[in-house]
């Protein structure tokens, strides 16, 4: 057993070394994770590198966040003035940049023409169209950044044409979509916990790997049909889940390694996988070719993009399929039996090790599909899985640890809560509210909605 573990560790080590050497070419200049607060969202004004004359410059970029992906915005009108007198004006280029030379060092005001912004974005602060007191030093260029938010999320008046009801319905629908995605990814986490007692911290990385595999096959240069790419992603991550179980967790269980120890090992595995992805894939946020804006469909007060509708329908079908599988098939019954009582299940002739592998493969496949959907609605990036992981934990604990149905129910609630919070609160906090729900649930009903009391305490 020790020899086998040693071999696994050696393989891992070699894999990491290979990763390091190949990653140099893959991400020659990949910067460390860009501080999200310093991309589009700040009215940070800092001195840029010195040039011969004084100027004020900047780049107008869309918000980081769902769908926005921080894309540069062209055709926005920017004006520089001093003591009310206009100094110069400029329109942003295709890459969102603008530069306005100023005659002399001094204090200037920079104003953005809100009407020239596209309808999909607005200023984060309603009164933020003017940045006063930009002081330009001799022979230097100042950078002025206007913080933007997606329409309806900033402090400005919501864009015209959308009634309150339509807005709320839209938010609830995106909450449902987000919740279904969390549910799909969380089932594997919950089933693994139910059957082995392991809290698998590396589950988020399955989500990211799934999204990335689909991205690599589904976009240029390969550009295979997206369905094929998704199926490949599901197969790859299912395989990965099974491999991790057979090569890592099973030997550890046979060795009698404690659950706490395995929990910490899974954290190590998560760090290793996540940063290996960062090394190979880089830190940029990518979009699937399929995630552009589409013409919305309208059903009464409900308007939804066809892509989102597809995601919701496919997710519901898959979740119902999983439920039927758990209820009706031999494999599903064995999984539930194992969750209920491992010894009894083993005594009644269930091949426990095989069922556990099936759980890992199933959970991995579902995580991959959820990852692709999450990538479609937000973006594909290296730590997307980790961002989703805490939401999964919140959903699972809310629903009841170890119960697959609880995971589905709890996740949907978490999705609606986190998206719904954006009606009243800034969207930067949507995950924080979901995490607070988690803590409140632990306070009042630690076993969750569908959990049994014995699991707590």
């Amino acid at each position, binding site marked *: 057993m020790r020899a086998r573990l040693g071999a696994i560790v050696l393989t891992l080590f070699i894999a*990491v070394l290979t990763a390091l050497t190949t990653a140099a070419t893959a991400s020659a200049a990949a910067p*460390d*994770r860009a501080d999200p607060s310093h991309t589009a969202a700040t009215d940070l004004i800092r001195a840029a590198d010195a040039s011969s004359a004084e100027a004020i410059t900047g780049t107008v970029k869309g918000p980081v966040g769902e769908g926005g992906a921080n894309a540069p915005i062209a055709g926005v009108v920017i004006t520089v003035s001093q003591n009310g007198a206009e100094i110069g004006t400029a329109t942003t280029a295709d890459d969102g940049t603008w530069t306005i030379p100023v005659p002399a060092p001094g204090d200037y005001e920079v104003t953005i023409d809100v009407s020239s912004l596209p309808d999909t974005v607005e200023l984060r602060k309603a009164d933020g169209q003017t940045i006063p007191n930009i002081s330009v030093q001799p022979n230097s260029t100042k950078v002025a950044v206007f913080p933007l938010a997606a329409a309806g999320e900033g402090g400005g008046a919501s864009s015209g044409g959308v009634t309150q009801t339509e807005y709320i319905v839209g938010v609830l629908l995106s909450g449902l979509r987000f919740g279904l995605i969390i549910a799909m990814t969380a089932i594997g986490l919950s089933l693994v916990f139910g059957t082995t007692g392991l809290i698998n911290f590396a589950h988020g990385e399955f989500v990211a790997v799934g999204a990335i595999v689909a991205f690599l096959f589904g976009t240029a240069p390969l550009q295979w049909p997206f369905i094929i790419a998704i199926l490949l992603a599901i197969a790859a991550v299912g395989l990965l889940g099974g491999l991790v179980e057979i090569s890592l967790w099973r030997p550890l269980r046979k060795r*009698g390694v404690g659950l706490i120890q395995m*929990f910490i090992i899974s954290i*190590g*595995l998560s760090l290793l996988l996540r940063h290996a992805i960062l090394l190979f894939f880089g830190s940029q946020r990518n979009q699937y070719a399929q995630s552009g804006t589409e013409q919305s469909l309208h059903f009464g007060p409900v308007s939804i993009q066809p892509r989102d509708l597809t995601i919701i329908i496919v997710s519901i079908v898959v979740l119902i399929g999983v439920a039927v599988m758990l209820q009706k098939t031999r494999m599903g019954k064995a999984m539930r039996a194992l969750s209920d009582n491992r010894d009894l299940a083993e005594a009644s002739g269930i091949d426990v090790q095989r069922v556990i592998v099936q759980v890992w493969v199933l959970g991995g496949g579902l995580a991959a599909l959820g990852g692709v959907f999450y990538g479609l609605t937000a973006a594909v990036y290296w730590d997307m899985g980790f961002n989703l992981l805490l939401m999964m934990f919140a959903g699972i604990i809310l629903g009841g640890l170890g119960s697959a149905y609880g995971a589905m129910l709890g996740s949907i609630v978490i999705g609606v809560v986190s998206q719904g919070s954006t009606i009243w609160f800034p969207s*930067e906090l949507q*995950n924080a509210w979901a995490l607070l729900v988690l803590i409140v649930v632990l306070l009042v009903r630690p076993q969750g909605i569908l959990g049994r009391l014995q699991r707590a305490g």
Partner: protein
Amino acid sequence: MDWGSIFSSALSGMLGPFAAIYALAAIGLNLHFGYTGLLNFGHVAFVMVGAFGVGSAIVKFGLSMWWGVLVAILASAILALILGIPTLRLRGDYLAIATIAAGEALRLFFNSTYLEPLTNGPFGLGPAASQFQNMSPFNGGKIYELGPFHYQGRALWIMVVTWSLVAIACVLMWLLMRSPWGRVLRSVREDELAARSLGKNVYSFKLQSLVLGGVMGGLAGVMWTMDVSTQYPATFDPKVTFYLWVIMILGGAGRIMGPVLGAVVFWFLFGFLDGFLSGLVPGINTGAARIALVGLALMLLMVFRPAGILGNKEEMRLESR
């Protein structure tokens, strides 16, 4: 590859401000996990409220540094109570998830517009360290050298104070763990039911441990702010907690000197890998590669040597829970 400079910077990092700050925070985590068996995966939250407690007091309220330190200690103690009262009655893994969630939620709030009046959000809170640096006997800008070690005067002053705090914390832990109080903590770690059946209020002991360890984390946050002077909430992501766990387990959980040794070895390796990896593979993202290796190290340690360098395998039986 310039081995001389790689080793020189690795050796300097080994005793540098960050090693000291992480050692101090890891001593608090060691009290939580190593001595009490609490699975605290949100230790970064204590460090963060300490860092911003002192920062806000100085920058936003114009208080003196000493009041700032008091605010930081109170803030981390209150956080420990808020976190501990609901979760310490639950099973260990619930505490783990609750603490990591609380840490993340707190970071998001600190970065949000709501708390901007207190924390400046993404714009950074500072400068907070001028009063501290004015007390320094060293010349802040000068570089002091001794053999392979070289530090700026600023950093040297941070190191002197923080390592002194580490020493005080170690002595305190040594005294506490020899006391009846420490014995109860260890019995809670080994067998909670046995401790309870002997009439000990396990919940209260866990809470005391959480508060004391949290305050040590808060003090580490204070020194962090004194070091960087301008603090950003984004600094305090879960990575900090994971580093602290590696440090504690590497040195040996449940040992007085474990976190200190762990921090020194960790920051030596961290500094060494930085130079070594960029020398080995030019253009590599050393930040990502190092953290990947930290993850691998955490796995290997847990599989082959869960007791760490100094640990006593008989005492730390993680399997029992």
